[in-house]
């Protein structure tokens, strides 16, 4: 990505042999069988894969919302995959996450949503500064400052995701995780979100991890793309590598073909 210097040896997130199972009515389902992946500081890594394949599960491990059954998650040199790590740890202050449906707090206005963590982490911060930050972040996501007083129920799906991004950026994270940022949006709104992901990386110099099955979005925002298939990362490469690879599973996914045999290699 032009303008962003990425050191291939400076890895900010490492997933080492991650395993995770869930118990369902049909028994144990091993979602992640052996996932190993390294994400470099400052890059945008896109993880692609089929629905229900465990992409969001990987994100939730990165930010400590889930603990692995095996393997480890290392963020900025610290192993965070222990049950008690997040008790008192500040690693989360370095990370932000944009949820699939925005996950805005329904009982708060847009402005309160954006400023919630800011106010709580900085007690005594002047209200003038908070208002200024809200206005700046709303401007960044191309929304009028008047939106600060609106409630989440008054916003469209795309607007909710943009406000969610503004809320994430309010705490100035070093890493932003995006869970299906363009799912359910029309192509034009999706492109607005894609541009925001790129602008965020450039302006704030953040490391981004994007989980998606939208290949248009993946090719636009990615520095590198990883593919998750049947609980394993089976491919990691640049968007150009993805286009030219002979890996039949990657080609099947990129072309959106139902049968593996139909892929010409």
């Amino acid at each position, binding site marked *: 990505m032009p303008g962003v210097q990425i050191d291939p040896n400076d890895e900010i997130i490492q997933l080492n042999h991650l395993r995770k199972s869930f118990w369902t009515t049909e028994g144990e389902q091993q979602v992640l069988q052996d996932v190993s992946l390294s994400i470099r500081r400052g890059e945008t890594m896109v993880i692609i894969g089929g629905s229900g394949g465990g992409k969001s599960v990987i994100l939730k491990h990165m*930010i400590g*919302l889930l603990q692995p059954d095996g393997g480890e998650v290392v963020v900025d040199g610290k192993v965070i995959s222990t049950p008690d790590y997040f008790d008192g740890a500040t690693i989360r202050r370095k990370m*932000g*996450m944009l*949820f699939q449906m925005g996950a805005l*707090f329904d009982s708060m206005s847009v402005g309160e949503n954006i400023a919630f963590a800011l106010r709580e982490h900085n007690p005594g911060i002047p209200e003038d500064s908070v208002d200024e930050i809200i206005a700046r972040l709303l401007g960044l996501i191309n929304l009028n400052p008047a939106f600060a007083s609106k409630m989440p129920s008054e916003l469209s799906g795309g607007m909710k995701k943009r406000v969610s991004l503004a*809320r994430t950026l309010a705490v100035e994270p070093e890493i932003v995780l995006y869970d299906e940022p363009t799912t359910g949006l029309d192509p034009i709104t999706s492109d607005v979100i894609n541009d925001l992901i790129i602008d965020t990386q450039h302006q704030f110099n953040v490391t981004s991890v994007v989980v998606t099955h939208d290949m248009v979005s993946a090719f636009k925002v990615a520095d590198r793309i990883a593919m998750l298939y049947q609980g394993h990362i089976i491919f990691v490469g640049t968007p150009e590598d993805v286009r030219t690879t002979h890996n039949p599973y990657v080609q099947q996914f990129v072309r959106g073909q139902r049968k593996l045999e139909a892929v010409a290699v």
Partner: protein
Amino acid sequence: MATNRLPDPLLVLDSLGEITIRFVRKSFSGILDGLASVGGVLVMCGQIMALFPKALQRPDSVVKEAMRLGVASIPLVFVTSLFVGMVAAFSAKYQFRDMVPLKYLGTSVAKLVLLELGPVLTGLVMSGRIGSSIAAQIATMKEKEEVDAMSVLDLQPLRYLAAPRVLVGMAAMPVLTTISCFLAIVGAWGVCVIGLGVTSYTFLSGTRLFFSPYDVFVCEIKALVFGLLISLMGYYHGSQAAGGAKGVGEATMKSVVSSSVMILLFDFLIAFLLLRQSPT
């Protein structure tokens, strides 16, 4: 032609063994799950109580919950308590018949309302009003990933979601129960004066006859404990919800059922502890 083959005895034994192992494993895992839930609730209760001072640092959210859970419950308490008092008066009069002087009608109603009907019925009604409301709200927030979003922002859900609600639950129940007891006695008084031929003086002097402040103490202790149980069960089951709308419905149902059962259980425990001996 169908053959009627008997199963191999070893296969039958094998199947029986497997069924037995499954049954034992399921039973034990059920018991272990139950114990884990109780342990989880107790730990959560301690964590939430430790966060009360921090919850009070955001008085606006506490006041908001107090209005939503406490003040908004007053009309329901008003209606249920009046009727409970009226029924209590009729019931006492029926049981007294000509054997007990009517001057004890007020005594009977006041004791019954203060020690049992007021706190227990208010608790049961509020488990449906407050507990279900908390469970449904938290379960919906969990389903919409709002609880995860809070954790990701390094904001403890227990501090911002649980502590204000449990605090309000514990504070609101004694107030609501006091209102309930007063209204139940008013209801009983109205029925006695209008429908049962008991004078106002007879009824009111009866209520004062064996009145003990200790009864009020027991009543308020019960209300406080029931308030904790209702709000805690609401939050716990809401936070455990999974599976979309079905999960929200189940969380709400479990919250009401578990808090109702626990109210009756703790009603007995408190009575056993505080009412075994007459106050000196």
